[in-house]
């Protein structure tokens, strides 16, 4: 698998996949996509980058251990649920704030925060798994 073409193309490919995964995450509420699919794409990006440049390089590039993202994701999703409590509606009720910025509608909401949490969990858990499997023994 370690051809020159793959090694040259992989970083660009991984970057594109990451950007696209965020795009898929954000469009998810209205078009096909969402946190889960986006997360799987993000994890694939990490896996590809890992195969091409080595696990050590990948770990350096993302700075923290990928499982950290998974933990943060669960926390973020849970926190998005608690936001509704001060508004005296039950845990995890979706709240929406819709802004009009220069003619286009920007919708911020607690389900969006929740979905970002899902994305982080999937990227973190699957990415950590893939990197750990790719890594040479003892390198982890």
């Amino acid at each position, binding site marked *: 698998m370690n051809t020159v073409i793959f090694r040259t193309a992989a970083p660009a490919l991984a970057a594109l996949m990451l950007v696209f995964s965020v795009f898929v995450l954000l469009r998810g509420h209205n078009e096909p996509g969402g946190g889960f*699919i986006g997360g*799987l794409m993000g994890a694939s990006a990490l896996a590809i980058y890992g195969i091409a440049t080595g696990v050590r390089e990948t770990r350096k590039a993302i700075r923290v251990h990928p499982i950290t993202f998974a933990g943060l994701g669960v926390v973020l*999703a849970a926190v998005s649920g608690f936001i509704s409590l001060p508004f005296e509606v039950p845990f995890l009720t979706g709240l929406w704030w819709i802004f009009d910025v220069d003619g286009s509608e920007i919708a911020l*909401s607690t*389900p969006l925060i929740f979905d970002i949490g899902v994305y982080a969990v999937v990227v973190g*858990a699957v990415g950590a798994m893939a990197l*750990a*499997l790719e890594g040479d023994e003892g390198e982890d």
Partner: protein
Amino acid sequence: MTANLEIVVALIALAPFLAALIAPSIKVFAGGFAGWVLAIVPAAIFATFLGFIPAISDFSVIRVGLNWIPAYGISFSFFVDGLSLVFGAMISGIGTFIVIYSGAYLAGHPHQGRFFSYILMFMGSMLGLVLADNVFTLFVFWELTSITSFLLIGFDHSRQAARRAAIQALIVTGGGGLALLAGLITLTLITGHNSLTGMLATAGGVQENPLYLVVLLLVVVGAFAKSAQVPLHFWLPNAMEAPTPVSAYLHSATMVKAGVYLLARMNPVLGGTDAWFWILTLFGGATLLLGGLMAVRQTDLKQMLAYTTLGSLGLLVLLIGFGTKEAILGAILYLCAHSLFKGALFMVAGTIDHGTGTRDITALGGLRENLPVTFITAILAAISMAGFPIAMGFLAKEEMYLALTQGSWPDLAFLAVLIIGNALMMVVGLLIAFKPFLGPTVPTPHSPHEGTPSLLVGSIVLAVLGVCAGLATDWINTAVLNPTGGSIYNRAVNAQIHLAFDLGNPAVWASVATWILGGLLFWKADAVRNRLRRAGEAIGWTFDAGFDALMFGLIRFADRITRLLHHGRLEWYLLLMFVCLAGIIYVPLLVVDSLPALPAWPELTFYEWGAILIAALGLLAVLTAKTRLTAIVALGIQGFSVAVIFMLFGAPDLSFTQFMVETLTVIILALVMTRLHLDDVDHRDLETAVRDGAVALAFGSGIAVLLLVVLQTDLDLTLTEFFRQTSTPIAHGRNIVNVILVDYRAIDTLGEISVVMAAGLAILALIKLRADAKGKRRGRRRGAIKGSLQ
């Protein structure tokens, strides 16, 4: 109720937890005064409770609530009535002195801040328990007291005995809590209420329900485990491994009374039947006698006190089971008296231990010169414990004897049990008050010295209150007995306790009998102790040993089951799993239903046929692949064409996910394969191949059949229609799949992502374990090479 009052009640339950949060920092800043600073919190709560007295003295309640999980009708609701007020005042009042005492008792301990934190958390849990209205709120706080008690018993966690005692207490009280939960749920189903106020308002009727006995047994198991009734009592003496302030607070004054609280609370709902009477009185009586006898047998001050606590709890359960007005009033009086004198005596025991270095009563003597204040405090507490006039203990005993001298012969039998039990506890009180202080001076591990004011103030106040309470009978009648008795009895009571020594009253003679018996036993205390020891050795079996046998048996059983199922052969795991899954699908279909009809030949376009053809080719490639890696990649071909089929039939989300899952499956499978160092080629002899193929066919065709069955049932479109109509206007999203995931069913998703994270962690740990083991081997090899080079 005014909004102010609601905030106050909510604050009472919350304040100790907030204090627990900042306790370690206060310890750092206030140093030796941390105990005094932190004691402000319980003291303020105590003052607030006193302020409630006028509001509830006419048998009314204060109720507040905050929605928690409204879908299940679960709320954080609290209420204050006479019963919760007495308990709340006891918890906060004694808690104040315990916090001050801990400041001195554990001075210089490296984890004192943590200790403060635990004990305040316990205080909050216990207050929440007695104030809870919703039964599930009650259960949560009930288990929180078990958990904080576990932390406190095991506080000195470097000692094996402390760890064992902590786990034992957690298993017994936590297990009892589960029985209680089952009981409370059943009770909720029977009464249709999940709040105590609701149950109490509609009390009556539960006793006739066919499920009554089940509820009663479950609740009683929970209460008995918590309040250490025979045969679930053995954890309490072991819990004395905790530091003395904990023993004084949790394991005599408050936590162990939670079971008594629950029984008193449930009296209007569950009480009044024969079953209630006999279960409570018999187990309570047995606990009283066993506790008294075992207490006299001990020589360690804390163990002696622990067993008398056992006896006292038995006494309280017996009285609640008896259930007459006098018995209930006697129980309330004894409850308060016991908390005062037992709390004081525990603190005295701690001060003696602190001042001399030993708690063995046979190794103590002549301390009156060096510990004069402690001596006087101990005498005052013992007066109340022995039930001598004007002390609160006297009032309590008179009332309970009065309850038992009115009826027929079973009453007299219980009267005898009560007199013997009280006499035995009186002996222990006298022993602790006199034995260490009188007689010739005995050398102790370090030269005896009096406690500091922080160590003394609590025991003095509690002991003095216990003795002087007898002078304030009017106040006790109106402020304590009427509202509390009213809550337990569920109708207004009019208590008329007064201090009198009327020789025409049979209860007085019962008290006199107790004193005479207690005095005789005290006179012959050493002989009695020796005889009891020999009797104990003759029996040679204890409940404690029984618990150990049970636990080790459980571990051995688990080990055997694990070895049976977890044999480590992956091939057999997979085979078993797929055979079982195929069985689950086919057996009900063949036995209950019939196989579905074959579907009609589909009308498809040429590109749809193309996708199906590619899938079939992929499968063929899997079967004929030369190497494992090729087979894995070929499996990906099949998965991708299925994704294309999803796309063609209008499920873009599904198809999208399928693409990603297929990609990652191939990548991860390939990576795992390279790690397992398997042969490149999959060798199977014919027999194995046939077996595996048959299982695979059975499972695969099973899934296909299942899908056909699903397709041939009428589709219920209600939900689909609901989501289609509401997703855009309510949830602002056109992608229904995503809206369901993050909004309608968000709580399911929250659970799922937690599982994903946990699975990720577990897999990481597994991979790392392997890597570590390899690394170590390699390290050793490297070391060996280095060694040979040198």
